[in-house]
């Protein structure tokens, strides 16, 4: 490895108007319309949420899954700044950008799902705090983290604007924000798991455990690395750039270590609580439990060896299997294995789905805009040379 390793980030450039951004624009407009209808006519005008399943995909997918998929930034920061793996540095900014959008839009999504949204500031007003509430912890932590991420990312804007002094000053204190940017997501990702605990017997025993915070935390870290694998491959192919295999290969190995840990914790917990027989019943619950965990086993089959990890296609697929597992963990806990008694059912309505898709489109659009206009992705030349590992 050489000093060249530190590729300077640079704007990708190019036009902002293309088929992708056009589609994103249309989807965003549809989403905005649906949100306005929802705000004027109540939740039942656009969603299928009901008292049995009061949290639909706007909460579970946009916020719980969305924020978990946005863990790439903190995972990279952890690797680079805390465990001092400087070689991963080129992956930091793109990952942080993904997180920034993921969380910012998750924050926006929860606002219009709130039934009494004009009171949202109560969550930040000491007179209203309920520090016993897991929801309070999650909401406060996520909000703080969004602010911290914008600060962490601001050097990119200052750089673009040529404000070198301001940037230098900011960077003197950046280490603190980076540390904060690691602690906050660890806290609220763990708490997303804790949210299930108070629901008691309504959550199936395979997912109802006091160890849930550890399970969610490990899953979020796995997801973070999975998303980086996925994003790097997508960004590379979209911009016709070299895939950073030399970096992704060892990083994927770190991810595998955490997967092992996750599976051990997950199955030990289920076995210790005596819930294992539930996994062997002939039911869709058992099926979805196995799907969740076999995705992780599949990751090992895909990229278990150093050789396999040199193959970009396998890295890409492994990213997907890890993401799937994390998505299923959250869907299972909050929707599929959540049972509020007979008579209730939920499946998202078309407008609900469109909003979720629109939020995703907004994230893609933001990502394209920023990477084309601001220095985020590493300058291409560095990677034109043959990859090494």
């Amino acid at each position, binding site marked *: 490895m050489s000093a060249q390793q530190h590729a300077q980030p640079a704007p990708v450039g190019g036009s902002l108007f293309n088929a992708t951004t056009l589609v994103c624009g249309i989807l965003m407009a549809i989403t905005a319309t649906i949100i306005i209808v929802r705000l004027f006519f109540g939740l039942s005008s656009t969603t299928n949420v009901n008292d049995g399943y009061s949290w639909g995909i706007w909460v579970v997918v946009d916020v719980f899954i969305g924020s978990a998929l946005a863990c790439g930034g903190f995972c990279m920061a952890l690797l680079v700044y805390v465990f001092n793996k400087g070689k991963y540095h080129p992956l930091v900014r793109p990952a942080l950008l993904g997180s920034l959008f993921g969380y910012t839009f998750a924050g926006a999504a929860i606002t219009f799902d709130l039934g009494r949204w004009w009171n949202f500031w109560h969550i930040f007003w000491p007179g209203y705090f309920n520090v016993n509430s897991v929801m*309070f912890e999650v909401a406060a932590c996520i909000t703080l983290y969004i602010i911290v991420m914008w600060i962490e990312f601001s050097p990119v804007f200052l750089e673009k604007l040529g404000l070198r002094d301001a940037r230098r000053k900011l960077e003197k204190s950046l280490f603190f924000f980076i540390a904060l940017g690691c*602690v906050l997501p660890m806290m609220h990702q763990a708490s997303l798991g804790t949210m299930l605990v108070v629901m008691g017997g309504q959550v199936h025993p395979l997912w109802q455990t006091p160890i849930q915070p550890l399970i969610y935390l490990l899953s979020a870290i796995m997801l973070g690395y999975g998303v980086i694998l996925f994003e790097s491959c997508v960004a590379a192919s979209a911009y016709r750039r070299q895939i950073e295999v030399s970096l992704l290969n060892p990083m994927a190995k770190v991810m595998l270590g*955490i997967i092992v840990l996750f599976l051990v914790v997950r199955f030990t917990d289920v076995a210790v609580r005596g819930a294992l027989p539930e996994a062997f019943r002939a039911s869709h619950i058992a099926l979805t439990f196995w799907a969740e965990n076999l995705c992780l086993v599949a990751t090992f089959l895909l990229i278990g060896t150093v050789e396999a990890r040199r193959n970009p296609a396998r890295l890409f697929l492994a990213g997907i299997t890890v993401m799937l597992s994390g998505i299923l963990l959250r869907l299972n806990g909050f929707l599929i294995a959540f049972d509020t008694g007979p008579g209730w059912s939920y499946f998202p309505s078309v407008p609900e789905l469109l909003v979720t898709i629109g939020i995703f489109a907004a994230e893609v659009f933001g990502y394209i805009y920023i990477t084309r206009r601001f220095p985020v992705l590493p300058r291409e030349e560095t990677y034109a040379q043959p990859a090494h590992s």
Partner: protein
Amino acid sequence: MKTRVGNGGVIPAGRRRFLKGCLGTAGAAVAGATVSERAAARETYQRPAEALGLLYDATLCIGCKACVAACKRANDNPPEFSTTDKLWDTPLDTSGYTFNIIKTYRSGTMATKDDEENGYAFMKTSCMHCADPSCVSACPVTAMTKDATTGIVAYDPEACVGCRYCVVACPFGIPKYQYDSPTGKIGKCELCRHRYKDGHYSACAEVCPTGATLYGRTSDLLVEAKRRLALTPGSVTTYPRGNLSGGPQQSYEGKVGNYKQHVYGETEYGGTQVLKLSAVDFAKVGMPYLPPKSSASTSETIQHTLYGGLLMPFAVLGALTYVAKRNVHHEDDEAPPAEPPGREES
């Protein structure tokens, strides 16, 4: 929880350090929850001494639904229709506009009342005013509160943000939201606390002709419930009506039902202030099995162990800040290439 599990011997030193570090910082925090659970555990709350509540005796209920109508009136709730002619208020379940409802258990020919086989029975559904309510623990903005004296679980729409965590958290599915309204509120029974200043008590108990719904201090109601369970089925006893713990008694004589020997709500989740008696198995009439330990106490124990006094977060933050301060400047993009390279290898 030991960290040993992650290292299979094949993982190189650097990676091992990473895994250890991950656990050391974050994992330990969570693992700590299990280890120190006993020390930090928050016990399941019990009812306040003067707790108010209801005793619902399904064997006395005649299904007249006077309590449902009275509840609507007392809470200014509009009727809800489930029939095409829209003549009567016919809600099928509690909702954002219906806080109390009588449901019917049916089996086979429905010949006899309170028979599990070929019989039918009634069950009242409304807030149980739990001793350790999940809804109160869940609510992020203290819109759900439990009165320290009366134990009534009250709702304040002015504080509520409408997140509906209370809706998903309640084991009885009680808080309901008004989805059809842009300014929707949560609706649930508050034991008619707004009527106390006028000398009234819970409207459902006030109107109940049979005393199947009885109002009073939960401690008194519990004594009454146990008295009924101790009687011989078929024998005759005196049943009070209205308010057990105050005012004139309007009692009458009636036959003792064939009770299941269980006061529902005596110990469930630490106890509830609404108690129930039934001749049909409680699970069959929609009352879930709940252990004596509340899920709110488990949830808050985790929460306090991890974040109590913010000690753990600050400790982790301190450690990470220290490490990050050492590492960050090496990665400064603008640092001149004169900086010695090679720090990445470790």
